């Protein structure tokens, strides 16, 4: 290959390697999780898809639309995508501290306190998160009705708000990362954190109940109508702390 072509390949590599490494790391970590989660002795249950929901609970569900929707929508799709949205919303608009680009400088030179500016930004992202959880969920209920099935709107709302409670904590965490870390560190630490949560969910039985993903799937509420107040409280507290901390940090930062 000519030197020039070699250089082209090299540049393509440097342009993409960050995402590549993050993805590879994620997948390799999943291998570990997958392997470790396989039951040691035969006949034991293994996880099936819906995050943090025990198989025994799944087996005992009736084969109806309500269970179907819970397993696939609240237990899987919404959890995953709302989490991704939370991370994405938290990651834009908060530029890394040192390499300040001009666009943020224009805003920083305005006669507004940084706390207000950043606070509004954080609030908007959170509102968008809520809407993104609630509206599609309502659509799910409507769509079910169109097929002659039903999923109670009230339950749907409660479930979606549970999902928001969990996603909100993720959002707050990544807001905090954005306020404090550079791009690279943020990517790495963010992935690592998500994996810790994810791995715990799959692996450790005792801790499973504290998984944030479990809060988001709301299995206690679905199965027994019990609202996990403790989980909500913990999530809200953590979120508030992280947000307040982020705002304080942004206030003091040099750009």
């Amino acid at each position, binding site marked *: 290959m000519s030197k020039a072509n070699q250089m082209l390949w090299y540049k393509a590599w440097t342009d993409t390697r960050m995402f590549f490494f993050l993805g590879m790391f994620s997948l390799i970590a999943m291998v570990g999780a997958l392997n470790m989660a396989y039951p040691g002795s035969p006949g034991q249950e293994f996880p099936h898809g819906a995050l943090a929901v025990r198989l025994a609970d799944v087996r005992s569900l009736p084969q109806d639309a309500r269970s179907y929707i819970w397993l696939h929508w609240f237990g899987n799709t919404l959890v995953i995508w709302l989490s991704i949205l939370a991370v994405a919303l938290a990651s834009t608009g908060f530029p890394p501290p040192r390499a*300040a680009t001009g666009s943020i400088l224009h805003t920083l030179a305005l*006669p507004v306190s940084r706390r207000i500016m950043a606070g509004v930004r954080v609030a908007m992202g959170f509102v968008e998160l809520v809407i993104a959880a609630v509206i599609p969920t309502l659509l799910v209920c409507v769509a079910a009705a169109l097929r002659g099935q039903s999923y109670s709107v009230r339950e749907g709302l409660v479930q979606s708000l549970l999902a928001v409670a969990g996603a909100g904590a993720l959002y707050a965490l990544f807001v905090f990362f954005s306020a404090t870390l550079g791009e690279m560190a943020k990517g790495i630490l963010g992935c690592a954190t998500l994996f810790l949560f994810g791995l715990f969910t799959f692996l450790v039985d005792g801790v499973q109940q504290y998984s944030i993903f479990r809060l988001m799937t709301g299995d206690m509420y679905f199965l027994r109508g019990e609202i996990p107040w403790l989980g909500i409280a913990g999530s809200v507290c953590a979120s508030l702390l992280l947000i307040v901390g982020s705002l304080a940090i942004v206030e003091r930062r040099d750009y």
Partner: protein
Amino acid sequence: MIEEPIIITRKLRKAYGRRVAVDGLDLEVPSGSICGLLGRNGSGKTTALKMLMGITRPDSGEGRVFGQRINNNQESLAIRARTGFLPEDKLVPGGMTVGELIRFTRAFYPLWRNDLEEHFLRLFHLPPSMTGASLSKGARCQLSLVLALSRGAELLVLDEPTSGLDPAMSEQVLRSLVTLAGEGQTTVLFSSHQISEVEQIADRVCMISRGRAVLSEEMDELANTYQQVRIVFDGKPPVSEFDNAREEGRTLSMLVRGDVEEVVARGRAMHALSVDVAPATLKDIFLTETSEAVE
């Protein structure tokens, strides 16, 4: 009646890790003046300007704009309400269109000058519906200027206002600055790499080198303070007898600050063949005062 300078800093200092960007900067900008800030890349100009705007916080030292402290959150906000800032990187928020950005910025400045906004929009032919992210570099610079200059601000802090502009546009921008300052309500502090621009419109010059002010004077005073002196000798020139002298053959050239008669007299006393004194250009002064040669 002597007014307080609109900007005063004393021993302003800012370090990033071990790199000291601003190292004890003393700056004074009189009200109503056009002050040109000259300095090489990395001299600390941009950091100094950002500190004035409260975007970066000084490690030590003090600064006041309009009498308000730059390192106090409340007072810094008050400063920003009366100041138009143009950052070095003329990037604008990418999500909004030109029109939206102007409306957005206008909302923060009750004294916004619609006449200036119209004047610049006409001058620059900015397409109102293009988003910030899709503007060309020149257009971005122009938009940044519109946003900074239309605020009806009492003070303009502009980091390289003509960078990215063609010569005709640059001249128009300089004209606007001259007119604004001439109206009496506005003070202008601008940094530039174009020495001729500073010579053209500034009535005060400040030079920064390695984070410190090496010169801060009225433009008119410079001609009295700095001269180029060339002394020709009949043989090897006594280069060590003169500060900052360059030796070329039998000639010594130097930039003299202050007492030029003394230097001339010394030259003659050493039996110089000829002593020439000529006015120093701002470029000469800049190159000498900001040179990073070890003394």
